[in-house]
Each structure stands twice: as C-alpha cells, then as structure tokens.
C-alpha cells in the first residue's frame, strides 16, 4: 500500500523526536558513526518519508515510487532510522548498524540487501550525478515519479557536484529536487572557513536551478519549500535547508566536533534527556 501522507503537525513532531531518539541510541550501540548530520536531518527525513514521497514500504521497488538518493552516505543513520520507522524493516535491526554481517553498513551498501536503499554511496560528490541519470530515465520513459537528492553543504566543495548541476539544468530536469543540508559546518570547522561556499543561492541560480531557502528544522517550512520549488517547469529545483547540526540536543547543536562522532552510553542518556526536555 502506498504510504499515506501525514498532515498533522503534532504527529510529524512526534515522529521526528522518535527518529532523533533512535539515531542517538543506534549510534551509541554502534560505537562509531556520524551523529551531527543525522540529528540535523531528522525533520527533513520525517517530512520526506511521511508526507512527501510516493512510496510503499511493503513494495520497495514499486516502479512508480519517488526515488530518494542520499548523496551524503555518512548520514546513513537518519536514513536507516526513518526507513525502519516507516516500515521497511524491523526497528530492532537498527542495533546491528556497522556490525559484521549487518545490512546496515556504515555508509549505504545495496549489496547487503536492506530494503528501501536507492544507492550505495559514501564517496562525496556522486549522488547528484546518479540522480540526474535517474531523472533523465524518467523523462525518457514519460514517467511522473520524482528524484530527491540529499546533499551536504561541505559536499558542494566537490567539483563533480557542479558538473551534475550543469547537466540537470541543461537537460531541463524539473523532476529532480536537490536538498542541501546547509548546516554550515564540516569536519574541519565552519564551511566558510574551510572553503567558502557563499554566495550559495546565487551559485545555484547561475547554474540554472530554481532555488528556495528554508528552515530545515521546521516541518511547515520544509513542506512549503518542496511545494514551491517544483512550480517552475523545465528547471530542476534546489532547497537550501538551513539546519542545525545536532538539532534537538541543545548542548551539541551547531558543534562541528559532533560531525563524525558517536555518543558514549553516558552521553547518549544525557542527550536523550535533553531531547525529552526540548520536546516537552
């Protein structure tokens, strides 16, 4: 059955909180992994899988589904926890993340058979090109499904992203929506210190994309932006989603040191308490 769309804002809030809890617990069990981006992306993933994408967890390869390509493979925890929450596989399996024999690889690997994965990815700068290929195939076959590609902002320093950006506009792929996780930080520090990306909106515009900015931690704003960015025919759309790395856990929000770390058991229980406070 095609996933029914959730419109109740309170329910979306609740799901995002559950996903965040699940991300913290899962990463703490795994002992390694990237906490920051997964917490920051929880609202986007909630909106996409519970309210935007046409998809069917019982039929992961349904040909008419919208495709979601995670280009930043290191945000795998938020993808896995969301897929489990929406019903692609049992949530207990999250405990196997990064363990030997698991279907939940550190970065997504399709050959391990996890349902709902659209691409094995992890080397930055490749997902948008693959998304262009899939969107192009949909156009060739007169299909109406869409391709969503989740990019990191640090990832935009890879030149190949801009090759893909050029191609998407050239090919007039209005069935392609890129979402940039603009949290402003990467492993070495702030993106603007490591390698400046601004003026980012103007860059995407100059490459021929329809650009919409939004608060990537606000469900209503995310949903409105996704609607808006698809209104221009013959142009691909990009949403610059301003998120906070570590969102939901006040003590680590915006702290780049939490990009590539997993919480210890003690940290995890502290973070879960902070999360509960935020939600209540």
């Amino acid at each position, binding site marked *: 059955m095609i996933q029914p769309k959730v419109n109740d804002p309170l329910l979306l809030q609740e799901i995002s909180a559950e996903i965040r809890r699940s991300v913290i617990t899962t990463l703490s069990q795994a002992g390694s992994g990237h906490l920051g981006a997964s917490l920051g992306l929880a609202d986007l993933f909630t909106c996409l899988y519970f309210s935007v994408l046409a998809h069917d967890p019982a039929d992961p390869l349904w040909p008419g589904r919208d495709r979601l390509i995670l280009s930043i493979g290191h945000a795998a925890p938020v993808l896995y926890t969301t897929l489990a929450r929406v019903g692609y596989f049992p949530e207990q399996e999250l405990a196997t993340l990064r363990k030997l024999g698991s279907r939940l690889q550190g970065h997504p*690997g*399709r*050959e391990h058979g996890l349902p709902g994965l*659209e*691409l*094995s*990815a*992890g*080397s930055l*700068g*490749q*997902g*948008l*090109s*693959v*998304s*262009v*290929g*899939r*969107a*192009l*195939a*949909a156009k*060739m*076959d007169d299909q109406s499904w869409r391709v969503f590609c989740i990019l990191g902002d640090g990832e935009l320093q890879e*030149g*190949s992203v801009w*090759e*893909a950006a*050029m*191609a998407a506009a*050239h*090919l007039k792929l209005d069935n392609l929506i890129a979402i940039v996780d603009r949290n402003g930080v990467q492993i070495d520090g702030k993106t603007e210190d490591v390698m400046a990306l601004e003026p980012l909106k103007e860059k995407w515009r100059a490459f021929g994309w329809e650009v919409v900015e939004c608060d990537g931690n606000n469900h209503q704003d995310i949903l409105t932006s996704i609607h808006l960015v698809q209104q221009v025919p013959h142009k691909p759309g990009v949403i610059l989603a301003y998120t906070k790395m570590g969102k939901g856990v006040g003590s680590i929000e915006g702290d780049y040191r939490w990009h590539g770390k997993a919480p210890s058991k003690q940290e995890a229980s502290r973070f879960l308490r902070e999360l509960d406070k935020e939600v209540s």
Partner: protein
Amino acid sequence: MSRRFINRGDKPTKTGFGEGLLASGIRHPEVIALGADITASVGVNLFAERFPNQFVSLGIAEQNCVGVAAGLALEGKIPVFSTYGVFAALRTTDQIRVSVCYNNLHVVIGGAHAGLSVGPDGATHQALEDLAIMRVLPNMTVLSPCDATQTKIATQQAIHHTEGPVYIRFGRAAMPDFTSENQSFEVGKAQLLHAGDDVTIIATGHLVWEALQAAYTLKEEQIHARVINLHTIKPIDKEIIVKAARETGAVITAEEHQVTGGLGSAVAEVLACEYPVPMKFVGMPDRFGESGDPKELMKKYQLTDLAIVQAVQTLLTTKSYP
C-alpha cells in the same frame, strides 16, 4: 590451427566499437550512449545520428557522465559511455568504483585511443594504465579485443550479453584487421590462435597481431610458439593459461600497456598460484610515452613482433627453473 591469419586491411579498432554500438542500438531503445564532447573521434557519432533519442550529450564532464550512467542503469537502461581511455578509466575512477561497481550496475565504458599507438598527442593521451586500474575493481569485466572485427563483436557482447560493469578498450591507429566475422567470441574465454608446444605468447589488443607475426618468424627457426588472444583480461581464462604453461613450459605476455598491473601481471597471478613457469613481459616498462608516429613509437618501446621474438629467444635459454 596452424593457418596463417591474413590482414584484410588496416582498420582502427575504434571503428569496430562504433559499428558494434550502432548495431546494438537497433530494436534496443534501452541502449543509451553518453557523449563527452569527442563523440566523433571515439566512434559514437554513427549511433548518435541514427538514434538521436538514445544519445545524450553531457559535455567535458566525465565524472558526471559516469554518475549519470549509473542512474540510467538503475532504471533499466543500458548506458554506454565512451571517451579517451585516459579519461574514461582514470579521471573517473572513484565514480566507477562507487557509483558503478559497488552498485554492480550494467554500465559499458569504452576506453578509446588506448595505448601508445594513439601517437602524436603524446603521453597525456596515451592510456597505458587503464587495464590495471579497471581490473582491480570488484564486479568489473575488462575487455581488450585485438582488431576492428573483434571489437565490433566484443562491443555487442558487452552491451547485450554481459552483466554488471564492463570496460572495453580500443585504439585509434589503423591496425591489421584479421579475425573472422564468424569467429566464436565469448567473454572470459581466450582464443587459441596458433598452435605450438615450445613456448606460449599470450597477447592482448594490438599486440595479438604482433604475436602472430612473431610466431610465424619463430617457426622458420623451428620454434613452435603457441599464441593466445586474451581478449578478456577479467574474468581471466585460467584454464587456457595453465594448460599452456603445462604444455609449453614458458610464457611471454605482450600488451600495449604498463607491464605493471596489466595483462602480464594478471597472467603471472594465475601462474604463480597454479603452475609457475619462466615468464617474460613485453609492455611499457613503467614509464610515460611521448609524441611520435604510432609505428615509430611501437618500435622505440619494443612493442613489436621483433621484440616478442627476442623475448622468446632469451626466455628459451632459461626455460626451466633450476
């Protein structure tokens, strides 16, 4: 098997690729060719003119081309991406590794202008490392056909009768076209082209013709060389290699590629484990090429029938291990 192969006339192997691609597109709308600006020079223009709706121009952006090919393959298309081998295999290695090979997608990558024989363009454009890099990638099939006729057949096989990623290598210079249009060609099955029990020459690509000429010369000296065309570098035909080593006791490899990591290494890996015999490698000795006429270059870097003959003579003096 002792028949002499006749050159029907020199023809570039890239022409075979272009013809094979064109033939593959007929009644197969799922075959999509991707262009990286140099479509005419790599033989894709014929296909593009005949099937404009199955051709996508993506400009000088090879990394993106490979990613787009992966995306198309995920949706059931058969993308064929071709550009010069130096760019097709090396500019894009990470995209091929992760987006194509790790996802195990049926993408066909054409490495054009391969080898030293591309000539005057010089070292930047002479792909002498592509076989080594492509064959090390899991899931990848690596083809290196020997003449235009075989390249046409291999291209069709790569597109319609092979699973997963395929790299197929071909050259620009006009070279002898000598294999039969009705030959039996199977990916992964090497061809025995000339019988002999004194020594084995295993060659690939343009060097197969040279190996045959070497065998004809050696015959006059009563040295009977077996010649094997290893048109599939991966998966490698272990059986024919081990049998040849057992029956002839000495193996020469010949390739228009760095000695390091290519055909010679692939054969040596098999023999080291299965049946070690004395070997010699004819190929580029870990150095870059340079500008020059293809034939002059092949001579200077000893990628000729004469060099193979000399390698055989040297090897036969040390044929058995002490």
